[in-house]
């Protein structure tokens, strides 16, 4: 599996994503600067967490307009697998590659803590190594992670099995509607999620629940 990680100005989980990918695939991902007009030939591209462009104006708004995103959008329509984590999720919604928007946390504060996550959907290249209904734990670290979409969109997402991850009922850290933590696009080749699987791929760091996500990609794409 060949992978790439996009680096926007003030991305800051790009290295973490690269380390997790290398651990699982044994291959270093290509690190791609946001200004590149073309993505190298890869099977999966990760839009990492961070504060692209300082999160100024709106999280992900400026990053969504960068040169490399044009190419990623085009290739995603042809089936390229795209994973957006945290800030990467925000970029995907701003780029119109995923529905809805991420808004300020209901408690208006940045929150960093492990959160109980329910896997809703194991039928995807991102989650096949999980069991549907499995309870796992990922850390969140966001101030703008409160997922919003209108009722029809939410119904469709649920109806079409595109809600892959949900916050455990009593553990929604940011007020996301219907406890949504991660969703797929219609083609199911683009996933955006707020929590950080890449930070729990090593027992020393308090868990390994994130590995299965990268292993799912590995299994699906190699």
């Amino acid at each position, binding site marked *: 599996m060949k992978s790439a990680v996009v680096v926007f100005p003030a991305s800051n989980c790009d290295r973490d994503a690269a380390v997790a990918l290398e651990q699982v695939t044994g291959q270093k991902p290509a690190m791609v600067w946001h200004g590149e007009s073309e993505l190298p030939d890869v099977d999966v591209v990760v839009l990492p967490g961070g504060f692209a462009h300082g999160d100024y104006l709106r999280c992900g708004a400026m990053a969504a307009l960068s040169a490399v995103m044009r190419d990623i959008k085009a290739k995603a329509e042809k089936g390229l697998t795209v994973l957006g984590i945290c800030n990467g999720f925000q970029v995907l919604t701003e780029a119109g590659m995923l529905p809805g928007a991420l808004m300020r946390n209901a408690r208006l504060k940045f929150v*960093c803590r492990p959160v109980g996550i329910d896997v809703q959907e194991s039928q995807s290249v991102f989650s096949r190594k999980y069991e549907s209904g499995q309870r796992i734990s990922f850390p969140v670290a966001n101030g703008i992670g409160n997922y919003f979409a209108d009722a029809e969109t939410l119904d469709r997402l649920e109806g079409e099995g595109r809600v892959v991850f949900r916050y455990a009922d009593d553990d929604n850290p940011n007020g996301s509607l219907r406890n949504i933590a991660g969703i797929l696009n219609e083609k199911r080749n683009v996933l955006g999620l707020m929590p950080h699987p890449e*930070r729990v791929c090593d027992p020393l*760091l308090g868990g390994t629940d994130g590995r299965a996500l990268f292993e799912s990609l590995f299994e699906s794409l190699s």
Partner: protein
Amino acid sequence: MTAQSTVTPEIVREHGISEEEYARIRKLLGHAPNLVELGVFSVMWSEHCSYKSTRAHLRRLPTKAPWVLQGPGENAGVIDIGDGDVAVFKMESHNHPSFIEPYQGAATGVGGIMRDVFTMGARPVAMMNALRFGAPEHEKTRHLVAGVVAGIGGYGNCMGVPTVGGEVNFHPSYNGNILVNAMCVGLARADRIFKSAAKGAGNPVVYIGSKTGRDGIHGATMASAEFSEDSGEKRPTVQVGDPFTEKLLLEACLELMATDAIIAIQDMGAAGLTSSSAEMASKGGSGIELDLDRVPQRETGMTAYEMLLSESQERMLAVLKPGREAEAERIFGKWELDFAVIGTTTNTGRMLVRHQGRIVADIPVHALSEEAPVYQRPVIHPLARSDDTSFDPARPLFDSLLKLIGSPDLCSRRWIWEQYDWSVMADTVQWPGGDAAVVRVHGANKALAITTDVTPRYCKADPFEGAKQAVAEAWRNLSAVGARPLAITDNLNFGNPEKPEIMGEISACIDGIAEASRVLEFPVVSGNCSLYNETSGEAILPTPAIGGVGLLENIHRMATIAFRREGDAIILIGETKGHLGQSLYLREIERSESGAAPAVNLESERRNGDFVRTLIETGQVDTAHDISDGGLLVALAEMAMAGGIGAFIPNLDRDPIPFLFGEDQGRYLISVPGSRSEQLMKDALNAGLRPGFVGTTRGDRIEVQGVGSITLAALRRAHEGWFPRYMRADELPPTN
């Protein structure tokens, strides 16, 4: 304002320069300074930059050890952590700005200390923050807590550097002067350290980062506003942080540092362009010429005075090898940062500044640095207090325990640290809540342990013992996770040094730090002083905050505070006399801040710590916790809550209150499987220690035989309850 405008005695006074100092300036210059030169002297000779009140005393601090590669004198200290790796760290205060504007004050404090670290060539890998606020019931406190915490998070989170720990105290003496001390730890390679000595003449001086605005120009400009071009709305002096630009600056600097184009580099911190250029020239034994017309400016009509004194954030000054400008400009262009060649180094030993074709300042560099005043201020040596510490023996033990762990100074800080990204960079092995934060050296099997400590009430009662205790507690916290303590940074926060009693506190605290750091081989490699923390004559408690860094050679041999197994023997290392003086028990339960501060016996401190560390290093112990604020029972409760396992304490043969709540120093609680406890006790005795069997881990409650018990659930409710309840005040969390 024109450079030529005459300098009146009022203006001199407004610049905080005494008559003697002014006479000295005239002598050094050979003529009266113009306003620009006066401004330059006023910042370079200020307490903040010159350390004129403390420098003579700071010389008493031990700063050397085989593993110290850079002690005080550079932007941050550097220590060897093996395999060619070094740790680079420093702590710095942003107290006053944080009181004026808590969010931006704290945020820019974080940005400033990060620049001190990456200007040395290190990538910041961990942030700590030591905070002191006024009484919780004071009307300003809640707002200040909310703003400071949001500001630290807002900046550090965007930088992608985990904030992994710190400390927080509340005390009325900080009502008008909160303390915000931020510490940054970075990693670099020993052969890639960058310094600030601008050696050699004819080298280009380049300006990097954000444009210069009228931010943070010291109060003097306010006073001399009549000299400025625009007399519009009163000029704000509050600096606003731009963590986005700082993140770009970090990456761009590290990219440039990977080349060999840099001769010297220095962040523009306090007194911005002035102190950075003067310090670099002075350390390099060279001179420097600046052309202010080339300085990237954010506002129009800025005067030379304003540009030289501006404290706009996210700026750096570097001296490059001749001919390397284009290469550097390409890198900063990629990161979309301002870059300008604004001058050159000379061999004249003078700082020569041009603006609009005129020379606006011409000052011998040594006059700004070596010749800066150093004062031996009068000192009244403080008397250690030793009044009585009576208490009511009839008070129910567990009520007191609940009160204590639910009190502002002992309750859980979760409300704070959940607002900090402590797991970014995916190397945080121990996050807030333990004795020391543990951050893995990326890609290696070793880790840094980091802590900040000081107990101001001890320092007030006995500055010498209190400062010793601060260093000892830092050393103890590092040992408790299994790390070898290596070095410290200090942040000396005090009142007005012109008062002999305050100067006495400063001097005694420095002696205390010096003694502990000598005996524990825990040298001072960097630090910072913040004086004049007074409001209407009331000084803060003496607060010499200590930041300690240690090394875990094997990340898999580490201890945490959490009980891990039922049936473990809980063993006390270190002697317990039951010292209640200055204890939180007296303060919170008996409402008296009385008694002598606990004394630290540095020899037994060392013996106990080395013993515990060895147990951890050899894999015999994986649960350890030092005993500090609140005493033994509080430490035990923390271990139980962290592990979700209770404890049974058999009949006490000791007077319970002093034994369980006394704050004797140099103590640890460890737990080992019952089967191994006897051998361990023997080993301890052979090592000349006095180990004590405290009890056994078990169940969902802490039980003291013959006294009663309390459930972990009840303890947690009290421990986690206070902060959220206090901050649920109907106040908006500050956002930028």
